[in-house]
């Protein structure tokens, strides 16, 4: 489906002339798919008309894709969904224990969020996924390219070389199949996510990593006065990512920072940043904690996973299982 979905031009839709086409292209929407997944408010902003007419355009774009069999139907039977989920692929994290926790690895068609304090292994998991995503299908990979959106400046290609060599892979090939995009501010991030469909198609990407999703918004939107605006923009961003994951059948991994809750007297005071917006939008939520040389991963939110946790370690070889279990205190 994804091979031809972007090739359908805007001219194929009734009611769109050359002027409107040009306006949409200038606004960053250059395909019927882009129009079908856009929000009415965005189209209204680009075209300057009423929200109703924008909704009509979006609906006709959806119908066009549905009629060509390029977009799934709105109402489908649970049996069809089950069949679709059977075709879903998973990427190994490098640790069997962590894979077991995620029931086989990182899923496609969904957003997996890793959050935790600094040094808890979020970026290390992302780096390992860049390598494991390129493994053959039988070995837990997707044989595909990774797009790495770096907002914190933490991407280190040297680390990819280390991990690839430890797995006996050709480091040069691995590096060629990881595409990096550096982001400098929140508007830039939003622009990139808006235009990502083109790059996913161009590079035949199978995994999209955003490290981290909240960093730039957290620095730019200061105070309660800007909170509502920040959350709305974040909401739009995360939902766009979710749509990309579903349409292109890719896995989306995002990392999230934590914040301390000062009014917590007992228990863990750390909470993921981004509030309820990110909490609701992400399909899977995994909390990473540091425990000496080991890391603890806990499933916090998932539609199908049981609430459980596991331990793994981060070494020169990337994410892997613990070599020797901790000795119990007498």
């Amino acid at each position, binding site marked *: 489906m994804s091979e031809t979905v972007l090739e359908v031009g805007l001219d194929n839709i009734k009611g769109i002339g050359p002027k409107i086409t040009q306006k949409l292209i200038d606004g960053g929407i250059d395909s019927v798919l882009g129009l079908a997944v856009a929000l009415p408010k965005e189209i209204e902003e680009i075209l300057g008309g009423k929200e109703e007419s924008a909704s009509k355009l979006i609906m006709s774009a959806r119908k066009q894709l549905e009629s060509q069999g390029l977009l799934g139907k709105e109402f489908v039977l649970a049996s069809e969904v089950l069949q679709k989920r059977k075709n879903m692929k998973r990427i190994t994290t490098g640790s069997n224990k962590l894979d077991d926790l995620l029931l086989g690895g990182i899923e496609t068609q969904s957003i997996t969020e890793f959050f935790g304090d*600094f040094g808890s292994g979020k970026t290390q998991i992302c780096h390992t996924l860049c390598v494991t995503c390129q493994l053959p299908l039988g070995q837990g990979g997707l044989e595909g390219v990774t797009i790495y959106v770096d907002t914190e400046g933490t991407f280190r290609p040297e680390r990819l070389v280390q991990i690839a060599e430890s797995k006996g892979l050709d480091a040069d090939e691995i590096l060629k199949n990881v595409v*990096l*995009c550096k982001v400098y501010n929140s508007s830039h991030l939003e622009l990139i996510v808006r235009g990502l469909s083109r790059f996913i198609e161009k590079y035949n990407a199978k995994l999209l990593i955003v490290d981290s999703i909240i960093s730039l918004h957290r620095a730019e939107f200061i105070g309660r006065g800007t909170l509502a605006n920040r959350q709305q923009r974040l909401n739009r961003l995360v939902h766009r990512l979710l749509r990309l994951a579903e349409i292109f059948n890719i896995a989306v991994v995002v990392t999230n920072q934590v914040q301390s809750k000062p009014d917590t007297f007992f228990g863990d005071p750390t909470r993921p940043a981004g509030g309820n917006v990110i909490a609701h939008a992400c399909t899977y939520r995994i909390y990473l904690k540091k425990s000496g040389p080991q890391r603890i991963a806990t499933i916090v939110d998932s539609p199908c996973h049981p609430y459980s946790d596991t331990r793994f370690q981060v070494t020169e070889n990337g994410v892997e299982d613990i070599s020797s279990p901790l000795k119990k205190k007498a």
Partner: protein
Amino acid sequence: MEITMQTATEALKENRGKLKLTTGQGDLDSLIGGIKQGDFYLFYSSNQKILDHLLHRILVNCILPIEQGGFDSKALYFNTCNYHQGKTLLNPSNLATIAKSARIDPKIVFQNIYAISAFNERQQITTTKEAAELVKKDEDVKLVAIHNLTRFIKTSRTPSKARQIVKQIIGIWKRVTSKRGAALVATCSASRAGRGRMPKPVGGTYLRHEANVVVLLMGATKGESSSVKATLVKHPYKKTPQSIVLYVPKESVTLTGHMTPSFRQQFQKLIEELKESSAFQNTLISREHKKAFDLLLKDAWSAEDVAMANSGIPCVMDALNLMANVHNKKCVEELRQKLQELESVLKENLEKKEEESI
């Protein structure tokens, strides 16, 4: 704004082309891997003297030529201080002493450092914006050093507001320095921690998330000598936490004193420099070559070779010899493995023949 994507191979090339600034301490350099362009380094300590000296030293080093571990460029010093409580600007006498010890004219140092100060949180944000504009305009500025970034969180009447301003400032500096390819070095004080717990930097979780490298410096005075314990708390690719101890003479808890590094330090520094040179990185890209290099390194650490290595930095011929040696060692290792395999096959065949004869 354009969307620019690059492959990791291109990113690796770009990363290797980045300059590294020395902190003035070989051990500290090897712990953090030097101060790299475009990265954010956070040093924190409960002893402000240590941070002060470190920052002064880094500022002087930035002006040094590239061959001496500097950036050969200008630096910007941003001081965050309470006018009524602490010092106001740079300490010129300290800076001059360090410059002389680094064999550079103090005048050149003074001419190449921009010094800006903020006395409260409101001033902090406005001056940061102005200073950021300055860095954007002056392409020669390759280092931004911020002294006690989070001071106003403690001293402000509205700490929550000061905390939010710090977030904004970090965002501005990170954006500007990563675009300009300048290094960002900030210091802050350490919070009080319980027994057996590592102190955290004052400034909240956001600061810890944003910094690429976080180092805790702790001073201790025992007997006749004082020492500074540096603990690597966060690093993008090194194991954390790991610590080293920097010994300094008593009554001057500084990182600026003249120190003769041990041979082992010089040796390790030399090996690291070799590993980082582009010619070697291209040679060591294959796993076999890397293994061969490590084996050679083990051999080199014998008494005779140490005496030879102590003669100084290898010249071009030495480097070429070493590269040839690495290649030879790799070939020898491959042949040895093949021989082992052939021997095992031969053994199996002989055993089979014996069985058949029986």
